[in-house]
């Protein structure tokens, strides 16, 4: 008796869902980013960036033919790719009214690479806001795009900065062994050698370490001109920078895009003053950034490093769906390649391989803020 009742209820529920689908049509997009675990801060920024883009897009009229836009935000918890693959499979397996029209993500390069293979095969466009490893767009995948820059460009920018501006002769490199951080550090090492700088040592720590006293003591006794820090996130970055100060390292500190986050300054405080890092140039006075910042900070608080890149990725995706009038990956891709519009982080204009170009500049931390400092294009300070 009980069983049959349950069965009827279940049927009724299923019917409601089907009928509900017919009445209100929802456009579904997905996101994959680490919402828990060590990279949760950046992952949450990415999710919020996508949500802010959906808010903005809905307020501007939405996508014709749909009543609302919904986000299926997947958590891949870490950077190892295992859970990212599971998340990608989950998104790719949705069908019918729940079909995912496109995905924003993932965050870490080591996660984006395996996940994109699955999504590409399933015919779903993926736009990464933060995976900067070169390999991401160099595998001939049709539906892989990114709004951030590339690490080979980033290492060129930082190499030039160390040689031309800091006039450094010796460099000590430390990375934390993720696809991204080690890949970038390797590129920087190569770049330094090409430019004639001496790399005293290229050491590694483990992602998620909190005690860096041993390696920092090593750096101190090596006393390089530049201590180059390539870590996967701002949490480790903050810890390393404040400990570096305490150990008494006087070398110039240079870091990269993954530690660009207000959290770095919150944690390291005065110890972060005067450190340099590379990040894509964001014109905070542009109208596109201003309108993004207004929407984002009203609802989601502090703007993180990749909030604007995620916002741009979602905006590009939704615009392509709107313009093509379809959720077919081939048509979305065609629209994305045609696209040329101002974005919050930078101009949204994709190349054939999915890259959107790099515009790395050097920033300095001054007065508790990230300040644009040096432009490798012109070789001049801002």
């Amino acid at each position, binding site marked *: 008796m009980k069983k049959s009742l349950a069965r009827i209820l279940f049927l009724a529920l299923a019917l409601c869902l089907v009928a509900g689908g017919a009445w209100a049509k929802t456009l579904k997009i997905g996101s994959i980013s680490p*919402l*828990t*675990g*060590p990279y*949760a*801060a950046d*992952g*949450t920024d990415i999710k919020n960036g996508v949500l802010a883009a959906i808010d903005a897009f809905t307020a501007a009229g939405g996508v014709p033919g749909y009543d609302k836009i919904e986000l299926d935000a997947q958590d891949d918890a870490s950077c190892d790719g295992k859970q990212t693959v599971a998340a990608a499979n989950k998104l790719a397996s949705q069908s019918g009214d729940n079909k995912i029209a496109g995905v924003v993500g993932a965050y870490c390069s080591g996660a984006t690479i395996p996940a994109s293979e699955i999504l590409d095969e399933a015919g779903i466009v993926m736009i990464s806001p933060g995976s900067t490893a070169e390999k991401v767009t160099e595998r001939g995948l049709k539906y892989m795009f990114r709004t951030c820059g590339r690490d080979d460009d980033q290492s060129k920018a930082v190499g030039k900065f160390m040689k031309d501006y800091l006039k450094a002769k010796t460099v000590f490199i*430390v990375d934390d*062994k993720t696809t991204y951080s080690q890949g970038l550090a390797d590129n920087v090492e190569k770049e330094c050698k090409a430019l004639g700088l001496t790399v005293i040592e290229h*050491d*590694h*720590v*483990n992602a*998620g*370490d*909190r*005690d860096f*006293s*041993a*390696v920092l*003591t*090593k750096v*101190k*006794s090596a006393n390089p001109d530049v201590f180059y820090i390539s870590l996967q996130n701002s*949490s480790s970055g*903050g*810890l390393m920078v*404040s*400990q570096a100060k*305490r*150990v*008494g390292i006087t070398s110039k500190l240079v870091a990269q895009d993954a530690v660009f986050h207000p*959290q770095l300054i*919150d*944690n*390291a*405080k*005065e*110890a972060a003053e005067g450190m340099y890092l590379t990040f894509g140039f964001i014109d905070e006075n542009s109208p596109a950034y201003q309108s993004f910042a207004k929407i984002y900070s009203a609802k989601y608080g502090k703007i993180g490093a990749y909030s604007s890149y995620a916002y741009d990725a979602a905006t590009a995706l939704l615009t392509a769906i709107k313009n093509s009038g379809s959720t077919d990956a081939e048509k979305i891709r065609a629209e994305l390649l045609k696209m040329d519009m101002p974005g919050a982080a930078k101009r949204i204009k994709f190349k054939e391989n999915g890259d959107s170009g790099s515009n790395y500049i050097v920033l300095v931390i001054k007065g508790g803020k990230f300040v644009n400092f040096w432009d490798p294009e012109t070789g001049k300070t801002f």
Partner: protein
Amino acid sequence: MEYFFQQFINGITLGGVYALFALGYTMVYGIIQLINFAHGEFFAAGGYVGVIVLSFLGAHGYMGTHPWLCLAFSLVLTMGYCAMLAMAVEKIAYKPLRRSTRLSVLLSALGMSIFLQNGLMLTQGVYDKAYPTAFVQGGLDIGGVRISIMQLLILGLTAVLLFILNALVFRTRIGKAMRATAQDKVMSALVGINSNRIISLTFAIGAGLAAAAGIMVGLYYGAVRYDMGFVPGVKAFAAAVLGGIGNITGAMLGGFIIGMVEIMAAAYVPHGGEYKDVFAFIILIAVLYFMPTGIMGENVDDTRV
């Protein structure tokens, strides 16, 4: 040589943290043969309560005038809070299972760990919380070796707490009762020891020490985050096993050995930074191979296997 002494100081500091942390594992194991997986969360909770109290005091201007008093106050408050948290965890998750198989208590401990860690994440957020560290900057320079105030503080506090704990366990009636309960719960109950109270107390002391370590680590590294208990928890557990689980002196020794091996591996082995954990665990395996009950472990009696 300066380099060696500098790394030695680093190692002994990290070792002190592991030692404080490992005691909770070993004491709980000694008394109810449970590996308390939630122990790492007491450490993280301690870090958070500490930063909340210190920030509150800072907002009212006390940090500027009496930073050390504020630190002492927050230390006491945090240790008290985590002690109560641990007693509550014991009451809710372990006590009802006291008569069931050891596996179910173990699973309950795992569940508690996940619950507490996620609770911390949901209430405190995914971002790091920064400690006010202005008052612990600076340090001593002794012949080129730099000992920061924070390192002195960790070493000093560790020494004091270990001393108090030793006195408590080996010199007082409560300590005697704890040791008796660890030896034989039924017999000790027969001679009038309230074993439930003693078990509760053991959890409280272990968590209090972990909480102290949490504050110290927060101050030392400058920030805390909700999952900070996991990796050091594994190391501290390894330290407890290395020293001989159930043995208090062994846990202290194990903590210092693991900390020292980790730092020295990173300092002297080429590319050691990435393999330092490997070295710590190689030592563990090597010691257990030759001394299966750990360095100071007692002979394995058949009731505990």
